[in-house]
């Protein structure tokens, strides 16, 4: 029942972004037919739009899924239901996570099929190209990382906009900080959107995924101790 409630709160957003994710590449392809742009820059455009959509959806869902649930005004109602606080936290997270992955899947399929359809060589499509798939998987993992960070901060701060603001500050601030440290002290700090040091992309992705989950566990520890 709580899953239904979380879905109901975010379904409009999900449907709108699922449609955007589905049509963005086909529409771009139709517009560019005959110009050669698709053949030359289609894969690059696909990667960029995929990362952009996932990033935006991750930030928005992270704030949306937790803002109303853990806000001061309704939390009395929610936390006097016979379930643990962890149950509410993880259910809300699971709903947003499923929606984020569904939008990523829709965008990936629509983009891949579009490239495969318009490319002169159907085998040379994004679906079968491992480097491309790896980059998309990396973008999806980064999206998940951003989602978890935003969700955790929204829960801890119990306010959608504050959570979103804090998350954006971290997401955009950390790379600049890491670059500054690298430039000044020649120390390489890991940046979430990049592979970690000499580790393989797969291992790096797994580590970033675990870091993302740590945010949710941390939020759980905080919310379980919060006095309402």
């Amino acid at each position, binding site marked *: 029942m709580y899953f239904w409630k979380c879905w109901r709160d975010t379904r409009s957003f999900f449907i709108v972004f699922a449609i955007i994710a589905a049509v963005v590449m086909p529409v771009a392809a139709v517009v560019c037919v005959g110009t050669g742009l698709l053949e030359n820059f289609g894969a690059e455009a696909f990667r960029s739009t995929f990362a952009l959509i996932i990033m935006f959806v991750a930030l928005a869902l992270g704030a949306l899924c937790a803002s109303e649930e853990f806000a001061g005004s*309704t939390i*009395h109602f929610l936390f*006097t239901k*016979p*379930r643990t606080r962890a149950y509410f936290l993880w259910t809300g997270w699971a709903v947003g996570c499923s929606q984020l992955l569904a939008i990523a899947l829709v965008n990936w399929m629509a983009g891949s099929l579009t490239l495969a359809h318009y490319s002169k060589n159907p085998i040379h499509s994004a679906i079968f190209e491992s480097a491309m798939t790896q980059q998309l998987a990396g973008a999806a993992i980064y999206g998940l990382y951003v989602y978890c960070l935003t969700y955790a901060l929204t829960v801890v701060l119990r306010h959608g906009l504050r959570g979103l603001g804090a998350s954006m500050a971290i997401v955009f601030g950390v790379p600049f900080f890491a670059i500054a440290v690298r430039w000044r002290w020649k120390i390489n700090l890991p940046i979430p959107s990049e592979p970690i040091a000499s580790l393989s992309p797969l291992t790096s992705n797994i580590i970033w995924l675990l870091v993302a989950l740590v945010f949710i566990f941390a939020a759980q520890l905080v919310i379980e101790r919060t*006095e*309402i």
Partner: protein
Amino acid sequence: MNDVAIRTEHLSKSYDGNHAVREIALKVPRGAIYGFLGRNGAGKTTTIKMLLGLTRPSAGSAQVLGMNVATERIAILQRTAFVSEKKSLYPSLTASELLRFSRGFYPTRSDRAAEKYSRLLEIPMQQRFAKLSNGNQTKVWLLLALAQGADLLILDEPTTALDPISVDQLMHVLAEIAVDRGCTIFFSSHQLEEVERIAEYAGFMDRGKLLLQSRLDDIKSEFRLITAAGNSLPAQTSAQVLSVGVEGNFCKYVVASDAQGFAAGLSRNGATVTDVAPLSLREIFLQLVQKEQ
């Protein structure tokens, strides 16, 4: 079977050194309607939050329906319905959707009861919560609590924003479920008339302390206003005498216990006792609070 629905021992809560609740010892018998009275900021809501596990006590313990709040919170919430002081709910859900949402948490919930109370309270079930008037928002909270079929109802200022007719209906419903289902009702209020109407027991809170708790009838039969005339009448308050007022040759004593004994003592000392009158709940409450101050 434990015959006490709520029992607290030395229950205390302080925020940054400020005592919101100080060592209170509540005892609410099972099946009783208990009015929890106090001014704004007396500590009623903090006590209720501790009973529901929303806030951890700084000291002391609480048992609800025979279970320890600190360790058996989920089991307690399964059998307890709650109406919050803040009557906010999800603005985009209709009353009907809120009922459906709530149903999933309580297997024992009765659809027939929900239908009955929604009709009785005249709630527009298909309207979004945000569009409802304050009174109707309160009614939705009450509906969710009443439909739950709980063994214990904890209501924090349940009549906020309700019109007199709705208050009347609510009082009637509460009395009915207490009698028919043996449901314990613990409700906080600063509306003394409401408590006087339906409560069997009352507890008076002020500045975090439980000043008095007893059967309402016992409270009313104990407290008396004694008017006496004479020379050298005692003018000090004590545990028995809550206040002394001098009007000309007359002294007015508010006595908390053994009024007859006190009046007899005055007579023995040469005073003329002109009147021994009962006090209303409002007067008793005011006297207790004034004494505390």
